């Protein structure tokens, strides 16, 4: 019996202690008519050897592509130590640290994580993480409504060029509580959010979401956007790429007053792409809003002997105490992913992370230049880019990507579904994992697919 250790003798002894004749007797409170006899839709058991073979076969079907897709999830090198340590049973198979004395390892890791992410974003306080970047934006919008007491509005504006999936997720999670989400315009030439339409509309928004870099990879003029939002009485929710924070100004320093809530997708910090999850969302804020944060928070305190230790704190905000009046229904964080991220950030440090960011930035610039040598390919926006850019093609993007995929090259994300107003646009990304040869290969394959007859070896 897989993972069930009972011997026949154990079963007999245990039933005797209970005073039952059979295991089936233990289910005698369940009405007879509800009991089932077998599960038709579940296959026969497999042992570990058989399931290993099956999973190797399945994984092999998905392997071997060279990918230039970003769009919210990024391929970075992950040090071997990160997941070897993260999957130690003591981290992997522990639960939420309710018994603080028996969970100091997990608690200290989270405290260190909170410290790192608060410092990187330039904010005072952090929670222990949320599910992912998109749901963190939804929670940030709900938090902004609680925190912005001067505003009666439930209108939240996403600056044009912010990931549209994030807006969809915010609508699904927070829309039922009466929040309205709208997108302001973006400049068709630069790819940046338009300042002039940011706080337009029927009522001043309660919050404005500003991303850095934005979904197109463009570096935004965050100071002007932040000041405009604050001038309109809105709180500023910054959505940032954590790798980019090694090079770019932290949201705490945006504009005159800084952003109010900062969140984003933590995946680039040591978490594998893995088909979309598990990732983690991070969230930081200023001191005055700390009691409005959703999710777990770890604090440092003293034990009976005066020794430093760590514990979950500010639990009075949470669902298991406040029930229907809690700040959120959330109870888990993404503890294990945060454990990985904390180790990743410790291994790279500020210098290493800055190099990763700069190498990604530099390879994307090279990639963009190389692909723009292919006839029919131009750069769509002229704002500086971090590690993604949008290319304009002279034909529909879908068939081009399909042809590239047949050669095991994943060329980026077709934007025509998400941004039909942009025409034939392709979002590309290169990180530090892409070599000059990889870039040359993409350029050559694209030239071939798009019908150019010669390969320009000197173009990269």
């Amino acid at each position, binding site marked *: *019996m897989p*993972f*069930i*250790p009972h011997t026949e003798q154990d079963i007999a002894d*245990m039933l005797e202690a*209970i005073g*039952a004749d059979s295991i089936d007797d233990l289910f005698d409170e369940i009405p007879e008519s*509800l*009991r089932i006899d077998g*599960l038709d*839709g579940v296959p026969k*058991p497999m042992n570990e050897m058989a399931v290993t073979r099956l*999973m190797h076969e399945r994984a092999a079907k998905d392997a071997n592509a060279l*990918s230039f897709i970003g769009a919210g*999830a990024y391929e970075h090198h992950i040090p071997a*130590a990160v*997941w070897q*340590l993260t999957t130690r*049973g003591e*981290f*992997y198979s*522990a*639960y*939420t640290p309710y018994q603080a004395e028996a969970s*100091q*390892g997990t608690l*200290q890791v989270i405290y260190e994580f*909170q*410290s*790192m992410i608060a410092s*990187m974003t330039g904010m*005072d306080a952090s929670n222990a993480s949320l599910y*992912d970047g998109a*749901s963190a934006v939804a929670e940030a919008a709900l938090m902004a409504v609680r925190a912005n007491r001067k505003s009666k509005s439930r209108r939240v504006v996403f600056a044009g060029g912010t990931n549209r999936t994030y807006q969809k*997720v915010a*609508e699904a999670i927070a*829309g039922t509580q009466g929040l309205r989400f709208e997108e302001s315009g973006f400049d068709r030439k630069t790819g940046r959010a338009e300042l002039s339409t940011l706080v337009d509309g029927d009522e001043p928004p309660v919050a404005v979401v500003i991303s850095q870099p934005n979904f197109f990879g463009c*570096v935004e*003029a965050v100071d002007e956007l932040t000041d405009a939002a604050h001038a309109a009485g809105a709180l500023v929710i910054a959505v940032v790429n954590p790798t980019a924070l090694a*090079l770019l100004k932290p949201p705490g320093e945006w504009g005159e007053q800084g952003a109010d809530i900062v969140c984003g997708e933590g995946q680039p910090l040591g978490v594998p792409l*893995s088909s*979309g*999850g598990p990732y983690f969302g991070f969230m930081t804020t200023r001191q005055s809003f700390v009691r409005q944060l959703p999710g*777990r928070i*770890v*604090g*440092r305190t003293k*034990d009976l002997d005066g020794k430093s230790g760590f514990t979950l*704190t*500010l639990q009075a905000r949470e669902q*298991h105490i406040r*029930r229907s009046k809690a700040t*959120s*229904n959330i109870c888990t964080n993404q*503890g294990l992913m945060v454990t990985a991220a904390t*180790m990743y950030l*410790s*291994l790279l440090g500020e210098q290493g992370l800055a190099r*990763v960011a700069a*190498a990604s930035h530099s390879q994307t610039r090279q990639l963009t230049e190389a692909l723009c040598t292919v006839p029919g390919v131009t750069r769509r926006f002229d704002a500086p880019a971090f590690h993604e850019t949008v290319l304009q093609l002279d034909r529909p993007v879908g068939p081009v990507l399909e042809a590239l995929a047949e050669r095991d090259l994943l060329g980026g994300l077709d934007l025509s579904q998400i941004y039909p107003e942009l025409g034939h646009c392709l979002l590309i990304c290169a990180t530090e994992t892409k070599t000059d040869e990889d870039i040359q290969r993409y350029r050559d394959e694209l030239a071939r697919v798009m019908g150019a007859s010669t390969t320009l070896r000197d173009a990269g």
Partner: protein
Amino acid sequence: MTSKLIFEKSREGRFATAQAPLESLDALLEGSDLPSEQRRTQPTVLPEVSELEVVRHYTRLSQKNFSIDTHFYPLGSCTMKYNPRACNSLAMLPGFLARHPLGPESHGQGFLECMFELQEMLKSVTGMSGVSLTPMAGAQGELTGVAMIRAYHRNRGDLARNEILVPDAAHGTNPATATMCGCKVVELPTDSEGDVDIDALKAAVGPNTAGIMLTNPSTLGVFERKIKEIAAIVHEAGGLLYYDGANLNAILGKCRPGDMGFDVIHMNLHKTFSTPHGGGGPGSGAVGVAKRLEPFMPIPVVGKNDDGYHWLSEADLPLSIGRLSGFMGNAGVLLRAYIYMRMLGDDGMRRVGEFATLNANYLMARLSDAGFDLAFENRRASHEFIITMKRTAREHHVTAMDIAKALLDEGFHAPTTYFPLLVPECLLIEPTETENKETLDEFVAAMIRIAERAERDAQAIHAAPVTLPVRRLDDVQAARQLDIVWTGSEDAAA
């Protein structure tokens, strides 16, 4: 063991050079067009340490944790069963890890096939007609479920239904979720035997009833015997039934929420299907629905046609409540659950419910014989049960929390304490099916030792734990003198 922070081990100029690009930052930024006014000028607190220091620091921290791999962990309502190692190593095969979530379906058939089959298996074990895997935790699964109920009523033009009935024994997430969905919470009392008070239910339902949220077996560790009657009352009133799958382990392979009359269910894959708890996540809260709620399922869902496996999204499910994550939820967690279910198979699945129940009833019988007070002594245990320390608290001033801390010194993780809220001084104990009889017997022996000590020397129990890296922590100071990010001081604020 001192617990220096990683920051306190930092030395300027040190870092794990093997892990970063070899070129210097200046060389990498040559020719960059990043505007200077957007550049970072302030340093971060990120530590400057070697790879060995990182490995040693976090290995040592891990050793300060209790975990399933190191300790019996009978935390009620959390189903801390063994997490098979194969589930982890196979979910981390390079082909799965490297796959970008927006990669084409042609380059994800292996993953999508696993997800499609997982959906099918979950339908079978729950008796539901559709499954969506996207919710990222139990609480998000709950949010999904209530949002679907709301969307269903609205789609029929029935806008009055905004009340969600929740028994007083429910998890805190239930009322919190109902509020997040813009619904009003109506609390239902429990009768003396642990079942929902049927008269109160009859009085509570009406034209405003959107639905009821139930956990069955309930958080009181007993099976809700009148479930079919409850289903009939709520359905007749026009409401829907929501099943909180927190306790699904108890009935796995024995009976199914779909057959009980539930319209929507969330499953905690990190409980019943043995994906790791990871120190508080990631979880996974897949949802199952009856036919009438299928159009409202969150997207994406995996479909299958002649060309293979593919995503169903907005165009396929136009009435969907939408997207809950940036991509498709906690895919790697779902893979672990899939591998676990394939290993168990139909036979193994049935045995989970049986042996989880056997272990709980055995432990309950042994503790009762040893003189501990059961919360519901006339009932069978499900996969968990409650003892109340009310008597010990009154007679010896030793509380459930004191017992919990004393258990830590005995080398056992504590059961869930002070939940459910309606049983005073309670310990909610869930042994799970993967523990052997010897471990359960050792736990009983430890409980007896603690109880005897409580009578003789209550002070000693109040002082527990004494064998762990820290003693009891000052939660009041933690909340009042908030120290949640390191700013350079060696100690917590005094």
